[in-house]
């Protein structure tokens, strides 16, 4: 049986043949990815060391841009606003998303319909979301002011006052992104085996105890992934705020990205804007590093 031995050897060599040469397929994608990440970032870091005025490159500036940015009170205010915005949004969205996920994760009539309705806000373009909320907050045709009037708050124009505009932008973010938290956490809940929970209930544990002792620990990895992903996205928030307030009134909703955009494209100080961006990049890389450790890598592991 010479052939038997040959066939036995074959799968092994076939597997090797499948692997060999497939590296070549990575090359075009790698070049494309480098062209839109490594190249522009390297270019940007060089630009952050140069002086620009009115779109003209005025030469090497050393660390001037960085020193300049770190002493810029408006920049520091924008950082503070962004931090406040991110913490507030992610916190509210996590709590609401978790609550909704726990609510839907049971035998309900029409589960998938509830789900679709809840996730619609995050599918449409952030610009369109901005339009929707402009229509709601508008002082002449909107519905927010009359509703506030019904609640006893009179004479407030949501986008007219500094703190109300900030809260208005946060509410928009909560509306748009709670669905993301809900969806990820619901998926996480559905992977939790039910038997131990039922056993705990039979043993007389209260719903609260079951949640904190059993559900939450098992949900933790998914919860972390969701929070880190949402945090990174929230840091980069631009579109909705640009459409809704352009950072105003005053600087009350001027997030980091709005200020960096204005610096580069309105004040044409690309070098200074890049210095801001490089500082933020450092922060995002740290967060992304955490996210990557949490997101289990590799095909087959999910």
């Amino acid at each position, binding site marked *: 049986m010479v052939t038997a031995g040959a066939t036995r050897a074959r*799968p092994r060599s*076939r597997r090797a043949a*499948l*692997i060999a040469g*497939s590296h070549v*397929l*990575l090359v075009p*994608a790698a070049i*494309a*990815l480098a062209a*839109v*990440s490594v*190249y*522009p*970032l390297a270019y*940007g870091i060089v*630009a952050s060391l140069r002086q620009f005025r009115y779109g003209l490159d005025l030469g090497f500036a050393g660390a001037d841009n960085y020193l300049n940015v770190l002493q810029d009170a408006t920049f520091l205010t924008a950082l503070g606003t962004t931090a406040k915005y991110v913490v507030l949004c992610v916190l509210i969205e996590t709590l609401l998303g978790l609550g*909704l996920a726990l*609510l*839907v994760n049971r035998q*309900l009539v029409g589960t998938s319909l509830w789900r*679709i309705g*809840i996730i*619609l806000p995050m*599918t449409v*373009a*952030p*610009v369109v979301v901005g*339009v*929707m909320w*402009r*229509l709601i907050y*508008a002082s002449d*045709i909107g*519905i927010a002011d009359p509703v506030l009037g019904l609640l006893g708050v009179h004479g407030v124009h949501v986008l007219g006052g500094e703190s109300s505009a900030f809260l208005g932008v946060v509410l928009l973010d909560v*509306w748009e992104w709670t669905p*993301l938290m809900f*969806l*990820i956490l619901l998926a*996480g809940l559905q992977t939790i085996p039910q038997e131990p929970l039922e056993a705990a209930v039979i043993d007389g544990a209260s719903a609260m105890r079951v949640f904190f002792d059993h559900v939450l620990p098992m949900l933790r990895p*998914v919860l972390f992934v*969701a929070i880190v*992903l949402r945090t990174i996205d929230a840091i*980069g928030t*631009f579109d909705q705020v*640009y*459409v809704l307030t352009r950072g105003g009134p005053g600087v009350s909703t001027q997030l*980091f990205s709005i200020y*960096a*955009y204005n610096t*580069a494209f309105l004040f044409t100080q*690309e070098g200074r804007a890049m210095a801001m961006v490089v500082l933020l990049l450092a922060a*995002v890389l740290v967060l992304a590093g955490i996210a*990557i450790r*949490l997101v*289990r*890598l*590799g*095909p*087959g592991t999910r």
Partner: protein
Amino acid sequence: MKRRSRRALIYLTLVAAEVFALFPFWWMITTSLKHQVEIFGGLEFLPQAPTLDNFAALFDKYNFGPFLANSLLVVALSVAGSLLLGTPAAYALTKLPTESWLQRQALIVVLLVRMLPAILLVIPFYIVLANYGLLNTRLGLILVYTGLNTGFVIWLMQSFLAEIPRDIEEAALVDGDSRLSALRRIVLPLAAPGLAATAIFSVINIYNDFLIALTMTSTPDAQTIPVGVSTLIGKIQIQWGPMAAAGVVGALPIIVFALIVQRHFVRGLTLGAVK
């Protein structure tokens, strides 16, 4: 009795959540169907005399046609380009030994690119495209979107491809298929639903992008729908009707696509981290 009232409370909370989630859609759609007089005539939750005037104005007076055409062209070519670049790479990654160094590094790089906020990239993109004379061109947008979306395609496709058992493909090879015909006969048909979902997610991502299109384009020669929508807001007096209509045009195709892939949503959003 206690059980029943608890159940009622659950449904009540869900109804409240749905109303909150869906009301802004309702408000925008009904506003887009109202006459100017009615928009300013106090709160109406239903248009009394529905009209398509706002949509007509959008295309006649505010020249929305070019934005729509630009969006369609840019999205179609960028999605096609990134699928062509990303799918073979994803296939190659699933063929590498699991957890090998190259595979891990490749996925980390791809994930990093995916997580970079757009504001970090637009300033250098602007300078680089200006150097090549590609500012305010559809080609410039297509190149940027193709590159950026390739990372997304790799992640999502490798998560779908990894579900195809290696044994099936190997068996086909043992049966005497060539590598290409095994790919065509076995892998592609099994991967088709994943490929379709990846394509639709890519359409949503690129169609919805605002910041990159805003900074790389300046005239209706290359501006896309989200940028077109934002130009309606810049005016001194906002034309609420046409603006609402523009919002509807911007949202409608995406809602349809989103409903098609809603089963894969979690995977698309978490890049396969959670299914």
